[in-house]
């Protein structure tokens, strides 16, 4: 409360001061007064608050110069009250003895706000968000007396109707040696419906046991879409765990058509054509990752929107600065691509590797387009 009173008092004093300074004086010439910005010693004190985006981005100092109080001459260089109100990031910058966290927040903000918010720069393939999202979920569980460890996994995490789900299990002792044993399995749908018992077998004697689940019967009937859990139990060692996979039907497919161009801002726009096969409108989510033609990672982008039946061109915009920072000339490779129908649970397509190369944009071409 006290701080609020002080701040209001200071703001009032400021308003009075601005009025006194800018009041018309018959003997004054319009270009005789130096810019008041020069007298401000607080760093970046002139940055305008944009309450919608004060953290996500900051308005450049130069663009706030035109902001003024009512009645001011348009040629005046006097700042408005708005100009001297600081954003949370600016307030943090003004702290004299910043803590390590505050320094981290500021550095992170600078890095994040360098690119469009829906882009993510990554420097190694393992940090490609699409690779991470589709990575197989391998899980290890110890039994209660820690004498053995059960590891389970499936060959994929997201399946399409008609796919075959393959599940694996391995038991190891405390020294890490594989144990020959028996496993029992149970297929459960939607956490509530027991569908069938499963037998896991080690077909080649390597200690890895597996079972397969057909999602389409011989008569062509499909298993319902949803989450399937394969509970795997080793009764001898009293250890159990479950693999959970999603059987999807996104209701849309990639047509295989792509096109690209540079946007007016100098960003790289790649458009991907999809065909929505289902009859009702749904929300769809597209995510793609960009690499150089020599397979060096650049970054990822995303798009989401409502789509009705038929063909659509969906945009993936890759920030010009993100591409320039990677220091790689074109052409660029759209290497990983995935489409999802946004629902609960989410229906994901296969992870696609379109092997699509863009036109040969040079770094200077993209940079020049932004000027």
């Amino acid at each position, binding site marked *: 409360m006290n701080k609020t009173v002080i701040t209001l008092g200071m703001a009032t004093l400021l308003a009075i001061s601005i009025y*006194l300074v800018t009041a018309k004086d018959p003997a004054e010439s319009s270009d005789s007064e130096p810019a008041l910005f020069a007298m401000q010693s607080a760093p970046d004190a002139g940055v305008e608050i944009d309450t919608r985006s004060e953290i996500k981005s900051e308005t450049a100092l130069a663009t706030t110069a035109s902001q003024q109080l009512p009645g001011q001459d348009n040629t005046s260089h006097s700042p408005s009250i708005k100009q001297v109100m600081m954003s949370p990031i600016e307030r943090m910058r003004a702290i004299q003895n910043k803590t390590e966290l505050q320094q981290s927040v500021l550095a992170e903000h600078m890095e994040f706000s360098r690119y469009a918010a829906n882009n993510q720069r990554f420097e190694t393939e393992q940090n490609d968000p699409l690779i991470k999202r589709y990575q197989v979920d391998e899980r290890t569980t110890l039994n209660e007396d820690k004498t053995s460890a059960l590891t389970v996994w499936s060959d994929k995490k997201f399946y399409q109707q008609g796919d075959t789900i393959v599940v694996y299990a391995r038991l190891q002792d405390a020294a890490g040696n594989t144990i020959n044993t028996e496993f029992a399995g149970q297929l459960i749908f939607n*956490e509530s419906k027991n569908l069938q018992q499963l037998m896991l077998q080690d077909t080649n004697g390597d200690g890895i046991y597996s079972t397969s689940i057909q999602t389409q019967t011989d008569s062509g009937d499909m298993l319902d879409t949803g989450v399937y859990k394969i509970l795997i139990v080793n009764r001898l060692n009293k250890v159990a765990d479950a693999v959970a996979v999603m059987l999807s039907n996104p209701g849309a497919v990639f047509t295989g058509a792509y096109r690209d161009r540079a946007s007016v801002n100098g960003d790289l726009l790649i458009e991907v054509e999809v065909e929505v096969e289902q009859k009702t409108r749904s929300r769809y989510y597209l995510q793609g990752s960009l690499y150089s033609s020599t397979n060096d990672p650049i970054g990822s982008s995303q798009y*989401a929107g409502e789509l009705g039946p038929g063909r659509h061109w969906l945009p993936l915009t890759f920030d010009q600065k993100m591409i320039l920072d990677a220091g790689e000339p074109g052409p660029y490779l759209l290497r990983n691509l995935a489409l999802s129908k946004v629902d609960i649970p989410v229906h994901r397509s296969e992870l696609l590797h379109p092997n699509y190369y863009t036109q040969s944009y040079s770094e200077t071409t993209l940079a020049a387009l932004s000027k």
Partner: protein
Amino acid sequence: MFKTNIFKRSKTRCQQAHGKTKAIRSLLLASAVLAVSSAQAMAANCYIMVHGHGTNGSIVSGGNQPALDYWKSYNFSTYQGSNFFNALLNPGDNYGIVGYDSTDASGYPYYRDETSGEIARQIIAIKQGNGDGYTHPESGTQCSATDNFWIVSHSQGAQQMMFIAGNAISGSPYYNTAFGNNGAVSVDYDAAMNGILGVFTLGGAITGTEGADRVCNGNWLDALINAAFLGKDCNDSVRYLQTNDVYTVRNYIGNNLAAPFYVMGGYKGFPGLEGASSGLLAGEDDGYINLASQMSCAGSAKRNLWDDLNTYRTFFGIAYGSPTFRCNNANKGTPRTYNMASIYTDHDAERNAGISGPGYTSIENGISCGNGQNMAGRIGTCTAN
């Protein structure tokens, strides 16, 4: 000629007087600017508190304020009398309580309007300076619209904030969307996250908990984990707390988060006999949540993570050699997620600051301000103006 000379002298004196006035005015303005800037730089911190599982935070009635009391409640009597705010708040700091229904009886998972939707709406109201609707025992601690905003989230609260922040950027799959009984509803996650400097997660169930796995998998139900806390059936709120990746919140967010997340993990088991629950969780844990989940590590939440956030080859449980995996900032499962601290505290003490000076382990990319303090104290020290 005389008249001309007089005119010239008059004009000079006038010009000199005018120049002095202008200088005084400019000095006055500069002082005011500096004063305002200084006051702005020292704006109060506002901590927006998002509780975890098992609390009906939608109740606010007289002295019955479960969402506020969450931060001083205790499951273990050894923490009786502890209070998160005693360790968190510096003079002049404020806080806002967010209350939502995270009970098993209601069974609302993180994507529901009753959870993420309600949390987002309350965050917006708190940031507008409208107060949180709770009676604070600490007088004068309601947030104002000019505060510096931080979010503090515990357990399931961290999962909730990950969903909100991960869908607050245009182009995200569930952008500004939650789900009610009749399908999708519009919620302004974007506005909720705008202006948030950072999100702290304390014992966050970011990639779930094995406790939920055990409830849902239906095998040897573990009586040592407080069944009343997790619930006895696999309702949606427990289902989406499992460690299987098809359920984890990171599978339901977009490319980026709207604010940075600073993750803190606990690796002390519960006091007394309840400490046996740790034996049932892979890797280090805080009694309920695997450390790999708390720290949002890439890969499985069941990683055998040690307190230094590394995994190792083991021989009869003894680690040896170089790390086989390092949960540093480069190996997170979610974007804009950063290590803050790995602390010798349990899931209960994380939210009530019941252990005042816990031990800790140095971790890669850790943040050292507040070393030696509990999670509340670390936040207060590291965010002090």
